């Protein structure tokens, strides 16, 4: 690597960065550009895509009310699951963060334990629990609270519930790290300046935990967008989201439409990620406004 002993920082910087850059370039950027190229074509019955360049896929997504319905539903699902996870995750993290390291580790292990089971198996687990003959319905029926079984599956609630159990740990871990990074002196300083516990939280703890909140909400939102298995198994076809349409397009060999829908999904992700960052301003913890 260069001139041995006199290798300067600049060289080291690029030498260390080159492998991951190359990796991302070859295995992410190039296929992504390729995918974009595909999305600019029509479908073909015999080839992966047609030969003429066209923007019709994007035009369809932008003008067809069916896609609008699905995009809005995707957005709504992502945001509401994100908010649910934020509220529950923050509360959990707030309780776990101040515990002694050992206890905290054990609590985290409990929290992460569900992630050790595959998404598919977990979704089937929820089916067994939420089904007509499932645990919830049998319990409710045995206590006489309901006469007939409740229809819990194939609904937005089922998807939200299923996804929350998967995504909550991401939120909790992100926020715990952020909370533990907050110097206790800031909280005592706020108290010394007459802030009651609520104001201390609003004015000091919440803004200082914003990096964790930002990474947690981003993770949850982005994972929700792509959580095909859970959405399909617990939501059924009536709860189709954008990612389900990508799958459907692929099953029908309409690769260009699938590619265009993927880019719609990507655009949605980027817009929401931008909004989250603009709203939470995690950079302010670094004192940059």
């Amino acid at each position, binding site marked *: 690597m260069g001139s041995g002993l006199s290798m300067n920082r600049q060289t080291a910087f690029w030498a260390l960065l080159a492998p991951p850059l190359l990796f991302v370039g070859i*295995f992410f950027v*190039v*296929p992504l550009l*390729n*995918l974009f190229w*595909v999305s600019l074509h029509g*479908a073909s*019955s*015999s080839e*992966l895509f047609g030969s003429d360049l066209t923007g019709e896929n994007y035009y369809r997504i932008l003008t067809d009310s*069916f896609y609008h*319905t*699905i995009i809005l539903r995707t957005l709504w699902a992502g945001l509401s699951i994100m908010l649910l996870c934020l509220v529950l995750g923050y509360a959990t993290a707030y309780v776990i963060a101040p515990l002694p390291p050992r206890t905290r580790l054990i609590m985290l292990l409990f929290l992460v334990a569900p992630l050790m089971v595959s998404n*598919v198996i977990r979704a089937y687990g929820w*089916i067994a629990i939420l*089904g*007509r*003959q*499932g645990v919830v319905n049998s319990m409710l029926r045995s206590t006489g609270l309901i006469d007939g079984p409740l*229809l819990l*599956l*194939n609904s937005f609630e089922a998807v939200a519930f299923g996804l929350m159990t998967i995504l909550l740990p991401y939120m909790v871990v992100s926020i715990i790290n952020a909370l533990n990074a907050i110097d206790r002196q800031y909280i005592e300083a706020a108290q010394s300046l007459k802030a009651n516990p609520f104001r201390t939280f609003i004015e000091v703890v919440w803004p200082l935990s914003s990096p964790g909140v930002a990474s947690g909400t981003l993770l949850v939102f982005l994972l929700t967008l*792509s*959580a*095909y*298995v859970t959405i*399909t*198994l617990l939501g*059924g*076809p*009536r*709860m*189709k989201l954008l*990612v*389900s*349409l*990508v*799958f*459907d*397009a*692929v*099953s*029908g*060999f*309409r*690769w260009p439409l*699938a590619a265009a829908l993927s880019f719609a999904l990507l655009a949605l992700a980027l817009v929401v990620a931008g909004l989250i960052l603009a709203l939470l301003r995690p950079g302010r913890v670094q004192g940059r406004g």
Partner: protein
Amino acid sequence: MDRRQFVLGSAAAAGSVLNLPDLRAAAQSKPSQMVLMTWGGLWGDSMRDSADAAFESATGIKIIQDRGSSPAERITKIKVNINDQKFDLVQLHDGIVPLAMKQGALEPINRNSPRLTNLSNVPDRFIQSHWVAMIYSPLGIIYNEKLVKNPPTSFADLWRPEFKNRIVLPDINHSIGPYIVPIGSIAAGKAPTDTATGFEMLKKMAALQPIWAKDTDSIMNALRSEEAVIGLLYKSQAFTVQNWGTAVKWVYPKEGAILYSSGTAIAKGTKNLELAEQFLNLTLDPKIQTTYADKFNYPGTNTHMTGLLPPPLQERVRLTSEEMSRLIDLDHTTMADQRPDWTDRWNRIVSAG
């Protein structure tokens, strides 16, 4: 599942960009192994123990199963590798064969090949230009005898309002998902090709909020858990649900049952065409086909197969000639052509409704 789809897409893209060289030397003479793309689970195991084993003992060539892909993905894999084919054989169900042919993924069947000795004992309705069915099963109605007081007799009975929320149907991504359109049209007393009527019936069905199942296992589970009291199912699978202790009964609809078949084709550009034909012939062997009757209650397509079964199994598997003659052959070519369009229309009715 989402990931697999994505990886496949990227692999296709990366392959076309990088033009990766094939590291395996093209073995023109006798290969040490051949690749069969098929379903996993019990099906793949049965293939391994019957046809694969018979092929290996006859030729000394090991069959490697690629079980990871859906039928549509199998076609894509063949397409992607077409210039340097790594696959030899592919198993597909009847509905997707036209698509595979259109994509140019299959070798034509040479009816005069000296290696296809069993072909003469397979009825013509099971042989297509590029594919030969190995097993078949009628698709009809299954219902819960305990919970349904007024037994159904026809496809039209699926639309009875009393079954609201309790009907299980394959969703559009299931291999037989689009069948709900011709079935709807049949139920309305029209020809199976009357698409407009079929979609009208789909709208009525969507209002009944059926349980849309993504695969056959989900249909069977919905029946087993009594989430559903009525649905569409192959006759063969009905026995499985019965064996689970669920009080279900399968009905041959009075409009006629839909023929479902599944079989084998040769991957386009295989380097072992003659050996592949030899394997295909084995899948049509009556003795080998008994494995599937035994394990899945599937009748084999070879007419000599039923005779090899013990009488009780014969009773289960056999269709009367009257039932055989009323089996409905769907227009798979048109349906495969229309599938993307139908998926779209189906989504608009069911998902965005």
